[in-house]
């Protein structure tokens, strides 16, 4: 069976959410919250499209499609569809459909609901582009796009400071990780010469053979660990709960945070199964799992509890992926699927409770089962799946992953213990989130609780029921979804056979029983446990979250310290530094390279040429001896006009013309600046200061003079001059070569220059405006003649 789809429609499917993002605000304007219904059709269609791939992919096929993007750099918008990307695409579009519906109900009547839909669609498109990406560069672009769009989503409620902080934190952590990943991709591209993932995957040893395995491994890990919130980068994820619940449900179930896991799974055939991989990943994954569950128990807020278990689940997935053991990888894939379904559902349940009861603190919730029966049902199903109880997909996942960890020859026992502890704590949270708010006596909630509208319960119901259906047809689930994905992970086609009920009593079953028993015991002790963890954490006091604030504050104070040094606000220092640098730039190379020019032969000049030189020198001398600043400015003008005359005499009328105008305007503007600033008419600097500035001036002048002499003594390459002379009139219809170069041959240069002139004008204007309000300290001079004088170089 071939997929009923062509390459073009798959490319369009990736771009469809972006189109929906444009349409969303208008639809929301017309249909209000009911716009969710037509909008949800987009991800639903994408989902349907990718179901067409399920059958062929399960037979071991994969598909590649591409459009050239920047072909000269080998950058294509290309997609690669195999088991792993199909599973992810289905999860993103499938869960995305219900998230859109849920967002319609959750933000009903919100003035910015259209914008919210837009952001969600942008994010969805970025995620699809990432998981289907084949070209490393386009993958990176979508990777960063997920960071940017999640920034927009997390900071959606931008009037609250906590929201803004969470958004910035997520952007800094995941965006920074993205840059590390870019470095990794660039190393891969330059070391292997390949840019398409499908090509790399075709020869699994290609990276290990380059000798750059370790840096590539570390850089890719930097991207994956920040995105997937591995300890110690886990702190951004719980903070991201500041976002409206639909965002949390989407970002933290199937998408954003799974992107790092996706990357590790995608790279597994290339980077996996090495000593480094099987040490670092299980270590970080295991620590993250434990830290995540322990921190989750401490919380009382439904969303925060779920958020920390998400951290834990990501740790579990990384740990399993890190074993490179086939059965454990199978467990990872199963758990990935199970987690996306139950976590998506539970987040939406938490949101619905918050929406309908007015609080999501478990201490103030109870007895909601009669008020919200449908939500209660969905919460139970999802909670049981999360607890790893039969007959749910979570149970199968746990059985398989125990089988995998138990059978891992390296550190099997250790990670099994970690997994058991983690899973039993996960069960505690599942019970606290899914069971506790609904049982017990009814508690007075801030709002009178009642069942939410269909938009709110559609998602949790469908996702949690799916967790059940997939478990009762284990063989089909295994063949259609788990097997193909596992094949992508291990790089060769594998078929697996899943069972819901264990056939005999074996280690995984016993481990499951231990997990359940321990979980139930801990749940009864939940309040004590919470108090104990809270006490311990208070004793420690410091965490990466605080560390993030300290790091940001450190960067801010460092940059302001640097700014104070380099931008001291004293014009004299700026000028001295600028000219020192200029002097060094012209003198040092000559000093090191020894390329001093030979003493030129003295040419013979006529008397009027001599007299113009004399005027220039006299102008300079009068600058030096001038009593007042105004005299000095005017004297500088004398020298400038003399130079203009020299240009004129030696056959550069355009240059002379420009020089004349620039000099005029410089004198006018400098004189205006003088009248504007409260400068004392005389220069009162002491002898030392004069000597220093004099030395700097002489060295710059000497350096420039020597450089010019050295340049003119080189043989002159006439190719450009000849070209301009020959073609100026014939192809550009102009006899004034200088002007033809400016406006035609090198027009783009001029375009850049006039942009600079306009911008410099704006900046000077802004500076003048700023300084109108307060009087300036002495010597703080704005030098606007710079804008005009720069053109002299042309």
């Amino acid at each position, binding site marked *: 069976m071939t997929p009923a789809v062509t390459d073009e429609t798959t490319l369009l499917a990736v771009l469809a959410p972006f189109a929906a993002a444009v349409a969303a605000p208008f639809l929301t304007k017309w249909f209000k919250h009911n716009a969710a219904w037509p909008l949800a059709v987009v991800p639903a269609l994408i989902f349907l499209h990718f179901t067409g791939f399920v059958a062929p992919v399960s037979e071991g096929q994969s598909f590649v499609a591409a459009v050239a993007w920047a072909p000269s750099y080998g950058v294509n918008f290309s997609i690669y569809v195999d088991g792993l990307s199909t599973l992810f695409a289905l999860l993103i579009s499938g869960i995305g459909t219900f998230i859109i519906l849920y967002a319609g109900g959750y933000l009903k009547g919100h003035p910015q609901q259209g914008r919210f839909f837009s952001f969600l669609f942008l994010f969805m498109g970025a995620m699809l582009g990432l998981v289907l990406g084949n070209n490393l560069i386009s993958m990176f672009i979508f990777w960063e796009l997920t960071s940017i769009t999640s920034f927009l989503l997390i900071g959606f409620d931008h009037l609250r400071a906590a929201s803004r902080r969470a958004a910035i934190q997520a952007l800094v952590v995941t965006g920074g990780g993205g840059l590390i990943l870019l470095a990794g991709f660039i190393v891969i591209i330059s070391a292997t010469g390949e840019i398409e993932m499908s090509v790399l995957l075709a020869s699994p040893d290609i990276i290990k053979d380059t000798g750059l395995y370790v840096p590539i491994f570390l850089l890719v890990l930097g991207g994956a660990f920040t995105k997937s919130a591995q300890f110690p980068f886990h702190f951004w994820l719980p903070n991201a709960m500041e976002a409206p619940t639909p965002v949390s449900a989407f970002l933290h179930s199937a998408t954003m945070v799974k992107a790092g896991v996706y990357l590790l799974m995608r790279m597994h055939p290339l980077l996996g199964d090495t000593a480094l991989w099987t040490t670092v990943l299980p270590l970080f994954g295991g620590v993250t799992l434990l830290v995540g569950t322990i921190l989750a128990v401490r919380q009382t807020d439904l969303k925060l509890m779920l958020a920390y278990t998400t951290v834990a689940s990501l740790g579990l997935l990384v740990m399993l992926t890190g074993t490179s053991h086939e059965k454990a990888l199978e467990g990872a894939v199963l758990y990935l699927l199970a987690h996306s379904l139950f976590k998506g559902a539970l987040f939406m349940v938490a949101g619905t409770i918050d929406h309908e009861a007015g609080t999501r603190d478990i201490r103030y919730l109870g007895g909601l089962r009669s008020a919200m029966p449908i939500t209660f049902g969905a919460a139970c199903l999802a909670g049981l799946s999360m607890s790893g109880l039969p007959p749910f997909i979570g149970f199968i996942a746990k059985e398989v992953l125990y089988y995998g960890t138990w059978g891992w020859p390296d550190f099997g026992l250790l990670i099994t213990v970690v997994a058991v502890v983690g899973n039993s704590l996960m069960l505690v949270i599942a019970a606290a989130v899914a069971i506790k708010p609904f049982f017990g006596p009814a508690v007075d909630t801030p709002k009178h609780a009642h069942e939410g509208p269909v938009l709110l319960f559609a998602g949790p119901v469908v996702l949690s029921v799916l967790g059940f259906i997939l478990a009762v047809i284990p063989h089909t689930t295994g063949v259609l979804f788990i097997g193909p994905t596992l094949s992508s992970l291990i790089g060769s086609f594998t078929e697996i056979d899943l069972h819901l009920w264990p056939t005999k009593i074996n280690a995984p079953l016993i481990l499951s029983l231990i997990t359940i028993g321990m979980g139930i015991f801990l749940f009864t002790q939940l309040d004590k446990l919470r108090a104990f963890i809270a006490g311990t954490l208070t004793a420690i006091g410091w965490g990466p979250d605080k560390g993030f604030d300290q790091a940001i504050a450190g960067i801010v104070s460092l940059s302001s310290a640097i700014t104070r040094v380099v931008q001291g606000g004293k014009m004299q220092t700026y000028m001295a530094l600028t000219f020192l640098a200029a002097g060094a730039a012209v003198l040092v190379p000559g000093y090191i390279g020894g390329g001093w020019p030979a003493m030129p032969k003295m040419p013979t000049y006529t008397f009027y040429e001599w007299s113009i030189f004399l005027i220039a020198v006299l102008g300079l001398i009068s600058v030096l001896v001038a009593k007042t600043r105004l005299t000095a400015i005017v004297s500088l003008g004398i020298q400038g006009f003399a130079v203009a005359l020299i240009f004129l005499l030696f056959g550069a009328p355009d240059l002379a013309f420009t020089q004349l*105008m620039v000099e005029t*305007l410089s004198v*006018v503007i400098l004189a205006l600046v003088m009248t504007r600033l409260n400068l004392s008419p005389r220069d009162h600097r002491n002898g030392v200061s004069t000597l220093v500035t004099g030395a700097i001036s002489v060295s710059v002048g000497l350096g420039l003079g020597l450089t010019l002499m050295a340049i003119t003594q080189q043989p002159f390459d006439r190719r450009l001059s000849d070209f301009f002379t020959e073609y100026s009139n014939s192809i550009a219809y102009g006899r004034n070569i200088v002007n*033809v170069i400016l406006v035609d041959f090198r027009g783009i240069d001029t375009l850049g220059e006039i942009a600079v002139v306009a911008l410099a004008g704006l900046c000077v204007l802004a500076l*003048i405006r700023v300084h*109108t309000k307060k009087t300036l300290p002495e010597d703080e001079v704005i030098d*606007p003649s710079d804008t*005009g004088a720069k053109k002299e170089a042309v």
Partner: protein
Amino acid sequence: MRTVIFRTIAPYLSALMVLYSIFVLLRGHNEPGGGFIGGLIAASALAIFGIACGVAAVRRAIKVHPMSIAGFGLFMGAAAGVISLFTNQPFMTSQWWPIDLFNVQIKLSTPLIFDIGVYLVVVGAISSIALALEERESD
């Protein structure tokens, strides 16, 4: 600075200079001149006018804010480059439309539009600086 003679002559001088700057701008393709020099001349004309008769008078005379002139010039410069894209040629490929007017051939072209853009940017940017600096003198 504001002697009677200067104040009387300045408007005429400025007008003459602006006229001359346009002349310099247009002859630029074949003789010394061009948008940059023309712009500088026009900017000095406005500066002189401002010194003599006050900034308010200049702002009244040029109607719009000088920075808008610069902005429009930059837009013209960029737009002149875009025209060639419509004929499937690279950005800034020059286009020529010679026309005959009273038996004189006038070569209209994108470089001319571009040069006018340069002229406007220079006039706008420099004179907005000069006028801003002169402003306090008048008040």
